[in-house]
């Protein structure tokens, strides 16, 4: 049995549920929008360190040892309906408490979990990910992380004024070109750091890894950050892409290194054919790419949740932890 943890208003979670239905894979849905209202939960930890117990929904009961896979996509406050006995002021603390319990449970389950929260933590530091990216055999663009305005000016000059800036964390994560008029604001860096990167021209390639499967999409757009291309009046066109085997392997290595069964990896194919990696998203909104390229990403997720992780070239199911 598969457990989906999330909110039905979230289109990616909705897609996973509908794909599970299409595939005929039985699943139970724990609606985080209302949880814990309407649910009974009860679990303890065995001597093996594994949790044991059950989750009971409106018309179903699921023993944890029946689970073949879990898909989890946590919700922000806006997706929650507060319990009638909880004041709005206390609600965020309660959501944190609910999620902490679920996260501890999912961390300890022996079945595949897409994704465990620990694996996704690296996405809160894109510069940390860049270190892993290098180790896994992908290129990382020349990058400067600093709170020193003079260092930025030198970097800007060294990169022939072809520089982008973006957040280091997952907050306000929009990529922008560094323009001459922005240099006046550099003294504000004294309050905290920013990340600057040499602008890499070329084609954006989004890779989704699902266990050992890989789906690459080429994104054609004139926007610096194609995710926000429409806002800037740019068209975004996507198509399935084929990437070199070495890059595929490096992407799979990176996802496994981060303990991510599902990952969205942002690459750029430079004019010389080399591939640069920018970041790894542990909770990718793959619906957008699936709709544009018709690649069966959600089917691969459904298969992974039902059958576990299959090693390439073999039928053996690999233990996840």
């Amino acid at each position, binding site marked *: 049995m598969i457990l989906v943890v999330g909110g039905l208003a979230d289109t990616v979670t909705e897609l996973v549920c509908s794909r599970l239905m299409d595939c005929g894979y039985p699943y139970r849905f724990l609606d985080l929008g209302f949880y*814990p209202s309407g649910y*009974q*939960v*009860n*679990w*303890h*930890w065995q*001597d*093996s*360190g594994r949790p044991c*117990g059950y989750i009971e929904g409106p018309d179903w009961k699921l023993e944890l040892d029946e689970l073949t896979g879990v898909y989890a996509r946590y919700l922000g406050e806006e997706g929650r309906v507060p*319990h009638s*006995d909880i004041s709005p002021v206390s609600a965020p603390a*309660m959501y*944190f*408490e*609910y999620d*902490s*319990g679920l*996260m*501890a449970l999912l*961390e*300890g389950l022996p079945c595949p979990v897409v994704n465990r929260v*620990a*694996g996704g*933590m*690296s996405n*809160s*530091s*894109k*510069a*940390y990910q*860049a*270190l892993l990216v*290098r*180790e896994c055999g992908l290129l*990382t*663009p*020349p*990058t*400067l*992380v*600093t*709170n*020193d305005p003079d*260092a930025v000016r030198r*970097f800007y000059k060294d990169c022939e004024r072809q520089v982008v800036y973006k*957040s*280091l*964390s997952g*907050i306000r994560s929009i990529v922008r070109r560094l323009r001459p008029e922005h240099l006046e604001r550099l003294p504000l860096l*004294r*309050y*905290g*750091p920013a*990340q600057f990167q040499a602008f890499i021209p070329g084609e954006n390639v989004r890779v989704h890894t699902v266990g050992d499967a890989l789906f690459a999409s080429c994104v054609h757009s004139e926007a610096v950050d194609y995710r926000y291309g429409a806002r800037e009046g740019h068209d975004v066109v996507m198509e399935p892409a084929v990437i070199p085997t070495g890059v595929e392997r490096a992407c799979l290595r990176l996802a496994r*290194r*981060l*303990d991510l069964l599902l990952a969205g990896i942002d690459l750029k194919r430079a004019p010389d054919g080399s591939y640069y990696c920018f970041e790894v998203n542990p909770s990718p909104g793959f619906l957008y790419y699936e709709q544009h390229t018709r690649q069966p990403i959600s089917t691969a997720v459904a298969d992974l949740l039902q059958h576990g992780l299959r090693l390439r070239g073999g039928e053996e199911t690999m233990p996840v*932890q």
Partner: protein
Amino acid sequence: MIANPLAHPSRLSWWLETERSRSTLTSNGQKPLRDEEIDGVLVLGAGWIDPSGWRPDDLTYMQSETHAALLAWLWSLQCPVVNRYPPAIWYRPQAPLLSWHGLLQRSGLQTLRTLVTNVADEARAFGRLLAADGPDGVVYGALTSEARYLVTSEDDWRRLAALQRVTPVCLSAPHGEAQRICVVGDRVVWDGDPAPKTIGLEPALREFATTAGLACVELALAPTAQGVCVVAVETQPRLEHFGDCARKDIVGGLAELLTAKPETSHGRMRHGSSESRS
């Protein structure tokens, strides 16, 4: 001592490319320090920002940026860093003890019998189970705070049931007085003399610290009806939790770690990968 290397008056610049990484750190008007000139780093915080004058959302953003930059820079250094926190710990230093259960048990350490439930009858049954071979009562503690409450009387149980109507509760077995331990490198420093039953746990304690990717970690052990259990894990050990003798040993251990030969980059990243806690 630098409160935050990425805020005025300090300046940190870190250049990262596919083939190399280098950085310079300037603090208090001193000569810039290149990364290869740093022999060791003791991490006592994640980069503090004075909240005064900030809008809450901007402060959150600046803290996130600072934490992200500092985590990565620490991982880029070739010198010993204590602790070179894996992201899962860096971003959740106060994670509930529950999140350590798996790793503790796989390391050979016992954990408290624990139940998470919003079913009143299950909570009562758990209480009866514990009472069968130990003292009466269960300990309730929220996962996101350190407060703990002993539930023994009928009134306690009624209030617990009321709480369960709005949230699952985390219940665990009561335990005796805890003893603090700090694993620092290969040393296991006990606050006071270890009991004969607990001294044999030293290899497991070292194993836990190593697997967690922590060169220095504080734990608390306590007797329970089922034996000696880990009742706390502190990823940012605090000297004030220990007596004078133990403090000296911990500081000695830290000095050893900070002056040790640098690790290889490959070994570091592998050691600290994000799966450590699960």
